């Protein structure tokens, strides 16, 4: 099979892709990426996630060579690639709108990059056919892209990247044009293929579900700056900054503005003992909606202003003082809008951030 051949000629080596102090400033003065450094290991699946316009796509495009690097150095497999032509970087990219060549058949779309590298016809035939079988598009090889469905186009775009046998796959929001069902299906498939082939991959998305499910590691980017790098679990359970805390997790983490005196958080008239000796005037106390423990003998009491029923779960919106918060709980509990409920906040489940710089305390 094709993926075995791909695997055999790769030596395992640490820090396969290295970004050193990468900065991108556009001619109009916009700073899209600021002093970003990152190491990616061979075979790793890394997801760049962040809100739109945060610079994640720019970073990917700089790795691909589609965007000039204002400052810094990118090296792939030990070689600096800053000034290497995109076609010779040994990278393959899958675009958001697939970017298939509309005038070429599926076969030619996949073969185009190989033809330009002077690979023999027979070898091209073999490679394209192998990959087409792998992606189950071998029935479509003679069709033009306009005759394919969105999911099929996506597969062809993937196939075009795979036949190149690149050192690294770059995915630029490849799933965002698909409908929800197909998106989940393709997501699993991308993950499966990446595991099978073991090719280093970078996946750009603004969708946190994609980020959490796909990535071995997640890079959270905001305003051109890396906020946090870590495994999905690390990012979720120990967000480094307030931004990451708010960005990852659905429903969003509750963040209460509060004052910490001798390890005790003051939120309106609620007191939470943090079991430390912190003193912060302007802090944010974060707690995930599903970490709020509702029980009949809870310490705190609130009124459910609004209840959202989601099937297995429900979300309750309430207020402490004038600060809104939500909690997520099993919908088996009988609670309606207007009811009061009792809950506890465990100091082992809270996240504390200093509001002056947004970093975790």
């Amino acid at each position: 099979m094709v993926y075995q051949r791909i695997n055999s000629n790769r030596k395992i080596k640490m820090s396969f892709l290295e970004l050193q102090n990468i900065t991108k400033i556009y001619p109009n003065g916009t700073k899209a990426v600021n002093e970003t450094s990152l190491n990616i290991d061979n075979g790793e699946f890394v997801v760049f996630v962040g809100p739109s316009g945060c610079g994640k796509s720019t970073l990917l495009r700089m790795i691909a060579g589609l965007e000039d690097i204002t400052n810094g150095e990118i090296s792939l497999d030990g070689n600096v690639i800053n000034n290497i032509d995109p076609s010779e970087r040994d990278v393959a990219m899958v675009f958001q709108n697939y970017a298939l060549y509309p005038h070429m058949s599926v076969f030619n779309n996949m073969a185009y990059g190989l033809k330009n590298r002077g690979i023999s016809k027979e070898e091209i035939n073999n490679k394209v056919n192998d990959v087409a079988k792998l992606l189950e598009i071998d029935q479509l090889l003679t069709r033009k892209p306009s005759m394919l469905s969105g999911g099929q186009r996506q597969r062809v775009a993937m196939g075009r990247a795979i036949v190149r046998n690149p050192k690294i796959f770059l995915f630029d929001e490849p799933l965002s044009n698909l409908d929800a069902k197909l998106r989940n299906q393709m997501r699993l498939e991308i993950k499966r293929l990446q595991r099978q082939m073991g090719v280093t991959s970078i996946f750009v998305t603004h969708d946190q579900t994609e980020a959490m499910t796909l990535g071995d590691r997640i890079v959270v980017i905001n305003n051109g700056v890396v906020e946090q790098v870590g495994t999905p679990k690390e990012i979720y359970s120990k967000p480094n900054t307030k931004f990451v805390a708010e960005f990852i997790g659905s429903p969003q983490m509750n963040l209460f503005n509060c004052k910490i005196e001798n390890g005790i958080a003051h939120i309106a008239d609620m007191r939470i003992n943090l079991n430390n000796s912190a003193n912060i005037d302007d802090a944010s106390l974060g707690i995930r909606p599903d970490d709020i423990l509702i029980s009949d003998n809870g310490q705190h009491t609130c009124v459910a202003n609004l209840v959202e029923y989601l099937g297995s779960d429900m979300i309750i919106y309430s207020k402490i003082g004038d600060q809104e918060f939500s909690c997520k709980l099993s919908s088996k509990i009988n609670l309606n809008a207007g009811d009061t409920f009792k809950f506890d906040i465990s100091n082992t489940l809270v996240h504390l951030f200093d509001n002056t710089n947004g970093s975790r305390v």
Partner: protein
Amino acid sequence: MKKVQFKSNYSQYFFLAPQLLILLIFLYWPIIQTFKDAFTMQDAFGFGSQFAGFDNFLFIFSDPSYFTAFKFTIIYSFVITVITGSIGLLLAVQANKVMHGKSAYKTLLIWPYAIAPAVVGVMANYFFSERYGLLHHLFNNLWGFNWYENVFDAYIYVIIAGSWKQISANFIFFLAGLQAIQKTVIEASIIDCKSNIRRFWTITFPLLMPTTFFLIIINITYAFFDTFGIIDTTTIGAPGSETKTLVYKAYIDGFKGLDLGSAGAQSIMMMIIVLVITIFQFRYIEGKIHYN
């Protein structure tokens, strides 16, 4: 919504009348007249005419100067199509690459399109004037340029005069065509192919095919019909009748030679040519060369 109901049955004709009158007077009546002319023989002073059947057609087909004009028109439209298409494409590709002052280049390259053919002809006249013409002087030094006597030189004259303005039209459409190509498709090809030239011929050019075919038709029609003013202000068909287009010949024969029968027959031949081009356009181009 309430439909407006008119009591009179005639009001719709009243509102249509201005448009219909224009069509009748400037389109249908001349067509009818042309058919009448083509099938009758008239004396030069217009005193009398008689039905002539296909005599006028037989006459133009036996007239060598008709075939000279036919040959010239074919060569002329072919060369103009190739020259304006390729230069227009080259300029569009270059202008599309420019980062700074893009709109300035665009404006400058589009300007000639707004100039009337007759004015273009007059300007070309200056360039090819025997006494002070820049291009006349240049070509004369190179190979003894003399368009009064040399057919090839006369071709060069009318081709340059006829191409200049049409390059702008080609430029506009090619530029629009280039900008309509998805940016990511080009980016994907940058990753797939190193050579700029190869990328152009394998990706960009095929994707411009709809524009190219459209422009071929536009250029042919231009060279056939819209170059009247250019011929009339430059060579006037000289040397001999070597640079008369079919339109120009029909005009000369009809209004200068006062042979309305022959001019009518020639017009009908042109009508047939237009018909063929149009059918070709609808059959093979409108339907086939769109990818999405």
